């Protein structure tokens, strides 16, 4: 007897949600065409595709600007977050001194800090990178600190019995132990970098050559150009999704041999 196609795991995981999405798009297209909903209220999928093709140079230029800020902020967040985590695990006192201030940055909404950062830093790109970085750094910092700290007590004893140096304990025990936590942080943080970038673009409202996708959404809003708005939104979503998938693949590549989270 042939197994029904729907019970196949690949079909269930990929084809089924895709199919649902297609049915939804088809329903959207046909019903809104039938009801003749005006384009400035809700555009049809076909309108959005047309807007994306017609204004591709503007949209993809903006995508590149937003992507650049997101990636720069993300890379900075990874470097700074990891380095600070390394400093934190060296001494409880240092962590106790600085952690409250790190939390202070985390709990203050970025929209509230962004105007200040934009005043202080003349270069718009740099200002936006700093804002996005402030949002993205926290999960990496806390996760990596936790990972570096939570080593198996027995393994630590074993290293001590074998007269391991502080450096050996860090590199051979704490760092590998922190990897799953670090990758968990990356997955959260890449999305936050994008959110930070878009939010601070809204605040900065910079146009011209440094116009990101947020600016296109603002502009489209002023002109009631909803297809353009949807197109920009679609690109932002795709960027976030792409980053997340990339981080998941990275995590899988480094952990699949040994960590439970990546076992199939």
């Amino acid at each position, binding site marked *: 007897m042939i197994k029904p196609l729907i019970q196949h795991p690949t079909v269930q995981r990929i084809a089924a949600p895709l199919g649902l999405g297609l049915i939804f798009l088809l329903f959207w297209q046909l019903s809104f065409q039938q009801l003749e909903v005006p384009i400035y209220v809700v555009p049809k999928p076909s309108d959005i595709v047309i807007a994306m093709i017609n204004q591709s140079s503007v949209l993809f230029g903006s995508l590149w600007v937003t992507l650049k800020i997101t990636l720069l902020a993300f890379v900075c967040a990874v470097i700074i977050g990891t380095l600070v985590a390394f400093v934190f695990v060296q001494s409880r006192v240092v962590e106790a001194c600085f952690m409250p201030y790190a939390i202070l940055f985390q709990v203050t909404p970025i929209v509230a800090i962004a105007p200040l950062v934009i005043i202080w830093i003349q270069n718009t790109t740099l200002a936006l990178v700093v804002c996005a970085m402030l949002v993205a750094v926290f999960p990496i910092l806390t996760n990596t600190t936790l990972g570096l700290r939570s080593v198996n007590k*027995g*393994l630590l004893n074993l290293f*001590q*019995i*074998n*007269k391991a140096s502080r450096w050996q304990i860090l590199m*051979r*025990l704490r760092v590998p132990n922190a990897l799953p936590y670090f990758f968990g942080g990356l997955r959260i943080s890449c999305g936050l970098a994008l959110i930070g970038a878009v939010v601070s673009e809204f605040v900065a409202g910079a146009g011209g050559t440094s116009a990101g996708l947020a600016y296109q959404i603002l502009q489209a809003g002023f002109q009631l150009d909803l297809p353009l708005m949807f197109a920009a939104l679609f690109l932002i979503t795709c960027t976030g999704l792409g980053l997340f998938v990339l981080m998941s693949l990275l995590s899988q590549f480094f952990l699949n041999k*040994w960590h*439970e989270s990546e076992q199939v």
Partner: protein
Amino acid sequence: MNSALPMDTPIHESSSFVTPMIMARGVEKTYPNGTNALQRLDLNIARGEIVSLLGPSGCGKSTLLKMFADLEHPSAGLVRWNGKADIQSQCKMAMVFQEATLMPWSNIEDNVRLPLDLQHISKSVSTPKVMAALAAVGLEKFSKAYPRELSGGMQMRASLARALVTEPDLLLMDEPFGALDEFTRHKLDSDIRQLWSERDLTVVFVTHSIYEAVYLSSRVIVMGARPGRVVADLEIEGPYLRDEAFRSSDIFIQQCSHLSQLLAEASGGHHHD
């Protein structure tokens, strides 16, 4: 006294004339919260002995073992290795923990290699030693496997191989087989006894199993709880080379029930025979 010992344990007898491998004098452990884990304890362990520390949980046997490993320090009293305060100059010590404590990110070979790696011994020198240690515990075919791919018993064997790879003269084991099923445990107990008989090895083995203590040891130290103290110190009678038949022998059962009685008295419980 010495002439009264059974003829088949000549090498591993304890002698009062030789400096003991481990000597504890007036050792106490009091934790900051006031818990008295160990109360004035005196103990000698001679070179070549295989000794079990037997007692209920909370009797401080693991704490005592950690002191023998120089991982914990007594609140009062002292521990000496070959009469000296510095363990590192006096013996090559290896320890096996309650869990296998393998590094999940490294394969078995690299896990076993770790103690040598930490001493910056080159791979060309360490590899034959790693292979020999794996062969000694019957894991030579699994050198490339990751810990999660092995059963609990095999992980414990890998942990044992990691302890043997440094060719220690003092092996400290902290309830190593507590989490394993009985068959695996019996097999590993036999292996430990075998390894000990083949090498110049002093073994201190913490357990709460009477049967394991009697099967393994040349000497059992019974400890009581609250506060932790030595209740009895017994030589175990039995053949030098032991096998499963020993487990059902009269002398084995006799000694087990004697120990069980001692333990019951120590913990203040009522023992029915």
